[in-house]
């Protein structure tokens, strides 16, 4: 039953990633694209965790942690650049 649930969740997250890519493509403003990238980061973390369960490895959480760190730093850097015109003042 877990295998069925993991397959369903992977499919649903793939659809969610397609929706995020749609918003990333048509976003009217830059902040929409930043928001789409942030959501894409969260959904890719979920996909990595799901593949970890499906392959029964237990070592991919480090990749998830790294993507979470880099995604947060990237989002803050992009919004900081929009707000102040510079990342590190």
């Amino acid at each position, binding site marked *: 039953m877990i295998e069925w649930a993991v397959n369903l969740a992977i499919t649903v997250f793939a659809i969610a990633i397609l929706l995020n890519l749609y918003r990333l493509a048509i976003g009217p403003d830059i902040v929409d694209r930043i928001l789409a990238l942030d959501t894409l980061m969260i959904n890719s973390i979920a996909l990595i965790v799901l593949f970890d369960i*499906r392959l029964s490895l237990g070592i991919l959480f480090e990749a998830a942690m790294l993507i979470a760190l880099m995604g947060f730093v990237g989002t803050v850097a992009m919004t900081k650049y929009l707000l102040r015109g510079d990342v590190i003042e």
Partner: protein
Amino acid sequence: MTASSMPFVLELVISLFLVAGALFALIGSIGLARLRDFFMRLHGPTKASTLGLGCLLIGSLLYFSFQRGGLSVHEAIVTVFLFVTAPVSAHMMAKAALFRGVDKGGPSRNYPDR
């Protein structure tokens, strides 16, 4: 997948967590794709995706805790990190959108009847 050694109730709980997390994240992404302006779109992912990823990581924590024997806290670290950073990044994005003056079409103009 060594699912045969798991009790049925635990398997059911893990599957429910995984499917619930996936549905929450799908709802958040549909909100991101379909809502009308930026401040409405900010609601969907930052709430639903965090809740969805929380459910998913709780399911993963249960699975690996039972499979390895003993508590597996690695997923909990990712969960805590995301719960701390998601409001911060949402706040920064809202500030950037206010600063840029993005288009506020529809009900997010602070005048509900217009």
